[in-house]
């Protein structure tokens, strides 16, 4: 237990150091400003004491005063205050900038990881969790930075105070020597009590966010099945746990705050009690005692700043502990040194002995899959629902890497290609289309230099030109988050146009034409194939018309390639294939 406690404090201090090391400039500026503030706070106590002793009391004693003395007193008070203001402004601004820079910096690092880590990693982490990692966890990690320079400044003040105490009266100084370490002790105990509670609260906070995310994503299902009450209950249960967790945090914090407030007060009282005795026996004078007592009251706030930093550390650690796994996650897609072929025609694709298993599933999704696609030809991958077609499609454009075996693009293992080489050659249209919260044009060009004519031509091929023209701002219309303002069919057409405009050497269509007219599909395939240098196309489809366009069909069942050949060959030789593609022909049509 003691070791663990110790660890919290040590880790906390290391975390503080991390923040300082990463923003040394801002930190130094803020500490300098805080020190000015601290020094001026002490100075203001000193000035009040001096004014009392030299101007106030003599005036009352003598019954006269001079304008010069009064102006000097006023000038001293205001001058010190102005310097203090400079200190405060600097501290606040620099500390704020330091905290916000750290937040922004870690947000960048976290999101960079999101973009770098493989899809398998994404599949293991709920969206809600990743969002809260980038948002509230990063914020929690660096929240304590705002009062940090203040606290460091407070340390300076405490040092000055202790020295001043010793110079005035060593006995009174002992009070300081008892009170200040006591403050730290209370803080240490606090951090240890708080740490596990804070971690739990932060964890619950993320879970509440995950439920909200999932539930709002599922809004349509919730509505159509009338499950709003049940969803609210599910959310409410977790919100209640979060509430209990936060109340538990509050109990500890609620105890800590008044203690931190009472300690300097009790210190002041002790100073007075002991000081009175010292004044009585002539060891010190009343004026010194007054300024020391004043100093102690002034110290109350900065001491609390130390408390704020320490109080926030458990939360910071809890947040940072949730960010760290993202930052340290490995398994990013490794890239090789090679460039793809620079020819312009279709790419040759070969899949050799590929195995693939999702996460820690016991049964592999793909087993020893081998086939090749000659450059410029079209291959249809056909198989029952759940046979592994989409997984295979993802492998071809290197969304995932196989557990075993290789995927070759123009004879080069895709893992040996440099970053960006695969996506430069291949375009992929997924089953579920994803659009960015951008304009129609932005969604198609993805900021590559395609001309509007290129874009319009692609839209025409994807049969999207008419509805885009009818949009209020045409190509400049924003499509909303994930294309929310468009219908499913419209989104699919834009996704197709996005692929077509690139004239890819390899096009992989994963059942991406289910919502578009067959004639549109034929037009897309024609556009890519009917040139001198036709693209290679791998299409996952059920429609016979689409399949009939393919030079070869690969029949996938249970993750294995069970047959290859032309459409006609497979119809003759593979009963499962025939049953699947002829399902509609066999319908007894009422006449």
């Amino acid at each position, binding site marked *: 237990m003691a070791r663990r406690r110790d660890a919290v404090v040590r880790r906390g201090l290391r975390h503080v150091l991390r923040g300082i090391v990463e923003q040394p400039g801002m930190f130094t500026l803020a500490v300098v400003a805080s020190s000015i503030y601290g020094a001026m706070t002490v100075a203001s106590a000193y000035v009040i004491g001096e004014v009392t002793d030299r101007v*106030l009391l003599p005036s009352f004693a003598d019954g006269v*005063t001079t304008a010069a003395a*009064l102006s000097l007193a*006023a000038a001293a*008070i205001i001058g010190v*205050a102005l310097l203090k203001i400079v200190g405060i402004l600097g501290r*606040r*601004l620099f500390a*704020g*900038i330091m905290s*916000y820079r750290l937040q*922004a910096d870690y*947000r*960048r690092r976290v*999101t960079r990881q999101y973009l770098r880590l493989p*899809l398998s990693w994404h*599949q293991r982490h709920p*969206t*809600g969790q990743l969002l809260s990692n*980038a948002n509230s966890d990063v914020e929690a990690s660096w929240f304590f930075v705002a009062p940090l320079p203040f606290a460091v400044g407070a340390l300076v003040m405490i040092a000055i105070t202790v020295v001043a105490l010793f110079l005035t009266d060593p006995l009174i100084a002992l009070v300081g020597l008892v009170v200040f370490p006591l403050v730290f002790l209370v803080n240490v105990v606090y951090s240890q009590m708080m740490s596990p509670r804070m971690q739990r609260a932060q964890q619950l*906070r993320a879970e*509440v*966010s995950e439920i909200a995310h*999932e539930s709002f994503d599922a*809004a*349509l299902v919730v509505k159509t099945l*009338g*499950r*709003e009450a049940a*969803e*609210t209950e599910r959310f*409410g249960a977790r*919100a209640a746990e979060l*509430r209990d967790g936060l109340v538990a945090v*509050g*109990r500890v914090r609620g105890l800590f*705050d*008044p203690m931190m407030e009472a300690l300097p007060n009790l210190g*002041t*009282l002790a100073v*007075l009690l002991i000081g009175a*005795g010292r004044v*009585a026996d002539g060891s010190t004078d*009343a004026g010194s005692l007054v300024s020391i007592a004043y100093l102690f*009251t002034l110290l109350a706030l900065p001491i609390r700043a130390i408390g704020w930093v320490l109080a926030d550390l458990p939360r910071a650690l809890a947040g940072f502990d949730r960010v760290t796994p993202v930052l340290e996650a490995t398994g990013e897609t490794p890239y090789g040194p090679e460039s793809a072929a620079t020819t312009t025609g279709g790419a040759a694709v070969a899949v050799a002995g590929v195995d693939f298993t999702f996460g820690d599933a016991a049964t592999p999704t793909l087993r020893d899959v081998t086939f090749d696609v000659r450059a410029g030809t079209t291959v249809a991958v056909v198989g*029952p*629902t759940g046979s592994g077609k989409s997984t295979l499609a993802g492998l071809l*454009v290197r969304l995932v890497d196989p557990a075993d075996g290789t995927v070759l693009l123009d004879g080069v293992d895709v893992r040996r290609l440099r970053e960006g080489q695969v*996506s430069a050659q291949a375009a992929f249209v*997924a089953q*579920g289309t994803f659009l960015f919260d951008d304009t129609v044009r932005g969604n198609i060009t993805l900021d590559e230099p395609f001309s509007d004519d290129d874009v319009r031509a692609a839209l025409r091929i994807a049969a999207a030109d008419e509805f885009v023209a009818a*949009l209020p701002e045409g190509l400049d219309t924003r499509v909303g988050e994930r294309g929310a303002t468009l*219908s499913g069919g*419209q989104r699919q057409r834009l996704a197709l146009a996005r692929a077509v405009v690139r004239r890819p050497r390899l096009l992989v269509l994963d059942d991406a034409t289910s*919502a578009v007219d067959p004639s549109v*599909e034929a037009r897309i395939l024609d556009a890519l194939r009917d040139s001198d240098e036709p693209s290679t196309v791998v299409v996952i489809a059920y429609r016979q018309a689409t399949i009939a366009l393919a030079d070869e069909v690969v029949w996938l069942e249970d993750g294995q390639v069970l047959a290859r050949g032309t459409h006609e060959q497979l119809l003759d030789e593979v009963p499962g294939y025939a049953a699947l593609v*002829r*399902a*509609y022909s066999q*319908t007894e049509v009422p006449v």
Partner: protein
Amino acid sequence: MTAPADAPLLPADQRREGALATLRRGLRMMPEFRRGLPVTFALALLATAGRVVVPIAVQQVIDRGLAGGDPDLDVVTRLVLLCAVVVLITAVAVYRMNVRLFRTTETALAGLRVRAFRHVHDLSVLHQQGERRGSLVSRVTSDVDQLSTFMQWGGVLGLISVGQLVVATVVMFVYSWQLTLLVLVCFIPLAIAVRWFAQRLATAYGVVRERVGDVLGAVAESVVGAPTVRAYGVGGRTAARIDAAIDRQYRAQVDAQKVTAAVFVSGEFVAALANAAVVVVGVLLGLAGDITAGTLVAFLFLVTLFVAPVQTASEVLNEAQNAVAGFRRVLDVIDTAPDVRDPAIAAPATVRELPPGPLGVRFDRVAFRYAPGAPLALDGVELTIEPRQRVAIVGETGSGKTTFAKLVTRLMDPVDGRVLLGSDAEGWVPLDEVAFSSLRARVVMVPQDGFLFDATVADNVRYGRPGMTDDDVATAFEELELGAWVAGLEDGVRTPVGQRGESLSSGERQLVAVARAYVADPDLLVLDEATSAVDPATEQRLTRALDRLTDGRTTLTIAHRLSTAERADEVLVVDAGHVVQRGTHAELVDADGPYARLHSSWRRSSTGAPAATG
């Protein structure tokens, strides 16, 4: 279907409303918060008293115990001990107050969170889609958290500060009314400045909250759109967009920080001014014989007592602006009236149940548009679908098929005309008078994207009918002729589907979604492209099983694959918001109309065979 280009957005941040009005509105929404508040206030008062007593005692010790360099140790000891007792009582009072406050605020905020959550679900689909997902989530998470920080820290501190201010003023008056007036005069400009600052702060924090929302949106793209980002190698572009959002948030935060710092130092400056004025005027008053040296020294102490809460209050003000911005966002959700309301709540007097028995559908001159000014998606549709019919709705993309389905299930209300459910035998009931409990139990729609929860297959199916055992679920799959598919899953119906069901293929997700609707046992089943990603053989088996199982019920099916239409009792052809053809497949396929064209095109593509199979 050109959907809600300018769908009615939530009125976030558009309404200008004072902070106090927001707080009042919010407190009304949080009855839990008011419970036990008097005791908490009493404790806060006690804490305030304690805070004021200590410095006064210090001054008394100096004035009475140490005066004249000959300390009266008895007086000092008595006073100090008395004071120590007060300090301890104050600490206990603050502790009790804190605990109470944490409990009531967290309870109240949990209530608010849940209420806002529920309200998001009560909003219509159009509203839900008009908002960014991340922004909706933040309203039940970070916006509420912001409030809790304020209510527990700022709220208390603010209350104590005001109390302290009042007490300090009163005590100051007792010591010297002249000097008190002087101090108050010094603070008048600050009071004016604070109002001005409050507005600046509100604006600055409003911008910060907005930027936070933008960052969440940008980050969400990199997470949800991960496959697309990779497939197109646009990691750099996505990173740039995220960075830009992060930069904008950073700049907004620094801007807000500048205003905050300015607020704080203005208090500091005024305090120094007051101190200097008190010294100068105090000495002059003293010379005039109005006050003693002791009173003046004591008064200087009291000024710090007056200044400290002013500074704290400006700090709290800052926090309050931030919290109010968050509060407003939460309240705006709750205050958005759902445009499709459950009549059980909206009009309990006239609410009705659906008539018993099989349900038919009647459209009475129904018109619909997605937004004011948008073209009509459905235009004066008038039709009756008899109960027990199996109807296929066909048409080009964007013809209004999905709109039709959403109106039947009351996901949206028509802009004109009405939709009725029922039968000639049992009577027809306008949909907008049917309690949601009755409607959702008997009318179920399966959308194209059958969202699955991160749970097992069985859990997801059970969602349609809570209380089913895993075996019941397995049986349901058997009945739907999907037993073989289930058997092929790693762990049968206990196989986890992953988040959003992504461990399954989209076709498989659709199978689960159809099973979920099937076990809900509706009298009217609406399938909107519900099997579009399922392989044809499985689809044929499944739909035939469904036909058999739902015999005697009404089904509306929207599908591109016209095999459904071939088997349906009746086909409705929708084009540009109108029902242009109606009849059996056999009648329509030979007629010269859009259906024949659609069908032959589909036949060609799905079978490669010539069209005239009818």
